[in-house]
């Protein structure tokens, strides 16, 4: 944090970080550790995608739905039509975008906000889950679904048993998520969304097309989440409603993003590290006796965070550092309003 405003220091720091991260699998080849890192990167990307909306008070409890669409559409196209994921994923993303428009447009047009918006999106999670289980002849239902292993080119099938390849791929996807997050953060769309989250009428009076701006950010968030689902599917080669869709996944996204920090680029990444390490520790420490415990702990922690640390772990640490450097913070205004919006993130 002592890099300050030096224009060269930051790019160099980023380049060093990128090289170090990319070098990890060549130095440390332990497959289990790589597996955990890959999961952290993929889920970080998914949580970042959620936070694109969540940071503006658009609390979606339906992102499991988008993730499920991304994963299942890609896998179904591969298994049934033999369509390469390189084409299947774009089609899956289009499906997720259409779904986002179908859910988002009526909500935004008729001003369904706050808790009511969260409830509508909760229904989206449920519906996608129901569709997957109801079409079990195609999707395998709750038993899960496996993309067929390719007999031809692994590259064409976007399949690989090599964890190093997956680590690097996941790293690129994760970094892409951060770039999009930062790009939005620096755009006028961020101002517009902040304004909308405070006062829709006043935003409209400033010339903001409220419905269009909300739809844009929703579609972007849905596209990224669906991509996370597809990447997860290609990596794990097994998907089930419990792992890529459904309400549990949706709530996990809310939890991780809130815990890590909604208003800083790396917040969701910190959230992913915490949630995945917690789940792994419980799994290793207690085995099958602890099934479902992680969700219980998530719930309790979520309540604690919304009340005591609304900016999340990373957000709060960065604030502390900023305060230490400069006694007068540049943007002290945001805290109460942001605390309020974070409290809307509590699951009903």
């Amino acid at each position, binding site marked *: 944090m002592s890099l300050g405003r030096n224009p060269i220091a930051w790019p160099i720091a980023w380049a060093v970080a990128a090289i170090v991260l990319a070098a990890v699998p060549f130095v440390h080849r332990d497959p289990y550790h790589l597996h955990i890192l890959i999961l952290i990167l993929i889920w970080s990307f998914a949580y970042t995608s959620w936070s694109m909306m969540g940071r503006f008070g658009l609390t979606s409890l339906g992102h499991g739905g988008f993730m499920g669409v991304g994963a299942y559409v890609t896998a179904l196209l591969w298994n049934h039509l033999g369509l390469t994921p390189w084409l299947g994923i774009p089609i899956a993303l289009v499906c997720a975008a259409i779904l986002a428009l179908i859910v988002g447009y009526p909500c935004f047009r008729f001003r369904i906000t706050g808790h009511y918006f969260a409830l509508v999106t909760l229904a989206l999670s449920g519906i996608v889950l129901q569709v997957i289980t109801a079409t079990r002849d195609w999707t395998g239902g709750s038993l899960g679904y496996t993309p067929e292993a390719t007999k031809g080119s692994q590259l064409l099938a976007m399949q690989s048993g090599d964890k190093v390849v997956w680590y690097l791929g996941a790293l690129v996807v994760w970094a892409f998520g951060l770039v999009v997050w930062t790009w939005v953060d620096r755009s*006028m769309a961020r*101002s*517009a969304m*902040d*304004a909308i*989250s*405070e*006062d829709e*009428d*006043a*935003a*409209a*009076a*400033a*010339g*903001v*097309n*409220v419905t269009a701006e909300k739809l844009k950010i929703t579609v972007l968030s849905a596209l990224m989440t669906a991509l996370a689902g597809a990447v997860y599917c290609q990596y794990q080669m097994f998907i089930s409603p419990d792992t890529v869709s459904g309400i549990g996944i949706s709530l996990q996204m809310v939890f991780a993003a809130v815990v890590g920090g909604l208003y800083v680029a790396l917040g969701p990444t910190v959230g992913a590290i915490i949630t995945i390490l917690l789940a792994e520790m419980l799994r290793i420490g207690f085995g099958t006796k602890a099934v479902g415990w992680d969700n219980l702990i998530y719930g309790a922690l979520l309540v604690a965070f919304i009340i005591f640390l609304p900016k999340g772990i990373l957000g709060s640490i960065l604030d502390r550092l900023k305060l230490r450097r400069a006694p007068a913070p*540049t*943007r*002290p*205004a*945001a805290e109460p*309003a*942001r605390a309020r919006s974070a409290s809307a993130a509590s699951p009903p």
Partner: protein
Amino acid sequence: MLAVEGLVKRFGGFTAVSNVSFKVDQGEILGLIGPNGSGKSTIFNMLSGTFAPSAGSIKFEGHELSGLAPHTIINRGIGRTFQIPRPFRRLSIFENAALAGYFGQNRHSRAKAEAAAERALAMVGLPTDRHAPVDGLGAAGLKKLELAKALATEPKLLLADESLGGLDETEMDQAADMLRKIRDELGITIIWVEHIMGVLMKVVDRVMVLDHGEKISEGLPHQVASDPRVIEVYLGTDAQATQAVAAARGNR
């Protein structure tokens, strides 16, 4: 510039505005007054697109506006302020104005929006520093910010809604002077809705008086202030009337 014909707004069985017609000429300041519930704000909300009229037409530079969304109307060149300031507290003072400058001018260019924001903030006398927070502003500062947001959209017509409520007398005079300066220096036509008649009468070119959703009087300030119907429904006591007439004389 603006031609309103037979404007009607009904809320269920209640008629808030009934058959109001008026014109606003380029470069003038029109005062819009009336007691509480007389329909001033409803007319404002129809002009700015918040409400769709039940009947009638609103033509701005020859184009029909009724039924258009608020953000479209801003982009046609009609800016508005709110009676109670509605700043965006998550944004800095500068970002508030830049947001309006960008989205209020059809997202033309960010540099242009930021330049417009700087001009607007300088015009109303707020800091143009990029990070100054809204929370440091008092009542007068928030009113200025409200005005700066509207000005940053570079409107041709400004709808100023009761912009003086909550200010002391010096601040009121300053704000009135500000509106006159906006018209004189930027050439922006203004419709000004106000409760405080004395200050308004000093600045406006023409006044329109509403009561129970109907237009009861329209004309030059001194004519309106001495209109017996206006004195009866709006001014109430003789003392207030005398004060208003005196103020209007100064603006003859």
